[in-house]
């Protein structure tokens, strides 16, 4: 049961959630790297579905997903990759992350069926605000969450509404901006998290993503959030590595160590 799995994953706080798109640097490397992340300290993984026009992403993820598409990756290959990860014994929640058009094109019912069958536990769609997510959420049903996002620009009123029916966890965008590593954790983050805590139903984990680049930054965020999402830094580390699988394992261990025992 996906929702229950997600809940379990947050027993360890703060949870570590790396992001990698399927197909980068190559399809085989990405599957190996995802496996290595899953077996070396990730609590959940965001598995990226490449899209031609990723407008919420900065240059690193943009370039990586472009490469993935050039490598011939489709939504079908993303599902195949999930199945392969499950076959190799990766048991933690796998959350799909992708833009709406490829999901819509597959058909919402078909997407749910195929995603569940492949072993996905939820989906994040950055260009689908709650106002437009009704059809997808209905198709996904009660147990397969479409993760909601909050931004620093989100008003208190809006946050209240978004939180009221959120499921799985909340994705807090730490910066006003696109994905990409930043030098520093945003100064407004503690206030943002505190504001959202007040609006969140009991027990719904708050995960912070966008901009977190190093284990030290992750630790800083991990003191006040229930989960830490690391995207561009992870993608960059793999892209530069001779052995992506080894790099992924090292990266997961380093972040895991930095986050040990510091939960909020």
């Amino acid at each position: 049961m996906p929702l229950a799995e997600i809940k379990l994953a947050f027993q360890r706080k703060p949870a570590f959630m790396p992001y990698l798109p399927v197909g980068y640097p190559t399809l085989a490397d990405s599957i190996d790297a995802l496996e290595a992340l899953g077996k070396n300290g990730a609590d959940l993984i965001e598995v990226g579905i490449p899209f031609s026009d990723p407008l919420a992403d900065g240059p690193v993820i943009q370039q990586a997903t472009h490469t993935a598409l050039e490598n011939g990756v489709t939504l079908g290959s993303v599902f195949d990759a999930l199945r392969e990860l499950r076959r190799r014994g990766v048991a933690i929640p796998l959350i799909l992350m992708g833009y709406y058009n490829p999901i819509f094109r597959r058909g919402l019912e078909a997407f749910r069926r195929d995603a569940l069958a492949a072993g996905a536990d939820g989906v994040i769609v950055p260009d689908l605000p709650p106002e437009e997510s009704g059809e997808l959420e209905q198709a996904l049903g009660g147990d397969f969450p479409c993760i909601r996002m909050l931004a620093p620009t989100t008003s208190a009123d809006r946050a209240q509404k978004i939180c009221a029916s959120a499921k799985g966890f909340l994705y807090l965008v730490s910066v006003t901006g696109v994905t990409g590593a930043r030098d520093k954790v945003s100064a407004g983050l503690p206030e943002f998290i505190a504001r959202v805590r007040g609006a969140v139903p009991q027990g719904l984990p708050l995960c912070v993503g966008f901009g977190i680049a190093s284990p030290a930054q992750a630790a800083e965020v991990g003191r006040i959030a229930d989960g830490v999402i690391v995207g561009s830094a992870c993608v960059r580390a793999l892209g530069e590595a001779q052995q992506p699988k080894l790099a992924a394992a090292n990266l997961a261990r380093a972040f895991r160590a930095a986050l040990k025992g510091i939960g909020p």
Partner: protein
Amino acid sequence: MTILPSKFGSYGGRYVPETLMPALEQLEAEFTRARDDRAFQQKLNGLLVDYAGRPTPITYASRLSERLGGARIYLKREDLAHTGAHKINNALGQALLAQRMGKRRIIAETGAGQHGVASATACALLGLECAVYMGEVDMARQAPNVFRMRLLGAEVRPVSSGSRTLKDAINEAIRDWVTNVETTHYLLGSALGPHPYPTMVREFQKVIGREARTQMLAKTGRTPDAAVACVGGGSNAIGLFSGFLDDPDVALIGVEAGGEGIAGGKHASRFSDPERSRLGVLHGTHTFVLQTPDGQIAETHSVSAGLDYAAVGPEHAHLRDLGRAEYTVATDAEALAAFSLLSTLEGIIPALESAHAVAEAVRRAPKMKPDQILLICLSGRGDKDLDTVTPLLASPPSLKPSPVSLANGEGKSGGTGRRKSERK
């Protein structure tokens, strides 16, 4: 959470990152206030009249009408608006709105460069900072407009991702907006994007249709039988159509870029290629989108940078469902032939975008009766296109295509003929 309807039938909406949602809510609220604010309307109107040169005239194209031998053809002369295209109507409106919202930085995207020039112009006039995103391919084919924007004080930012055309310029503009949303207004150039843009841009472009209707009544005593406009994102067309929506006898015809032909996929027609165009979401809007079977956005092609875009404005999809408007295509070759035809017969060099609308008139007018009237929205002037057109119209015979060769769609004029024969 919206004030105005956010969809046209099932099309439109707001498919954007959460970071932008509050800005869209603010924009919508401010736009509705401004719309009902006499002072704002007077200010905008003043600029449209004294600065942009409105109303633009309607010209009777007598030699073209005679040559085609059918309907009487009239041209709504948006090419005579300041900066040379209809884009200035929307740019002035949104720039004033930005000023009202206290936003001093403007970003814009541009394909043909006309919207970039219009935005840069409005910003110069109002003293706002301006950055324009433009695909590298479009920068090369619309070089004069790049110079103009820089001269006007705008920063032109080349976009090298994807197809390096309008779609990618919009991606970059949205990324900039996501990052600087608190200080920056995104001056979107067509009737697309997330709500309220399609509605707002239509309202700012309505002036085309409103004027055209009044002018046609004054000139001919009646409304036209057909009103034709090219459709990139759809702003000049929706502006013209709005003026005649309540006149059921006026046929509304939008013309998309047929590029090298529908069958080969090298085109930008969202309505006539059921194989590649499907319902989808691009740049915040649910509408028809050219895409792959896997839902990736397809690369498009048109000789005209302003029509070279993978999605169509949502209101057009709705008007088509309603049967109120009809959409056709003109190929590169047809547009080029129409481009030289209008130039030589009327002394008016149209924008390549507008030439698509002229090409439809060339096909349609001969089938109409002499007592019928066809109105073309001449959305812009063609100076910007001379670099593109000159090599393509190299062979002299092509300069005077006969109506027959155009009517059967051969377009054997120079056009892209060379490239075509290479492929054969």
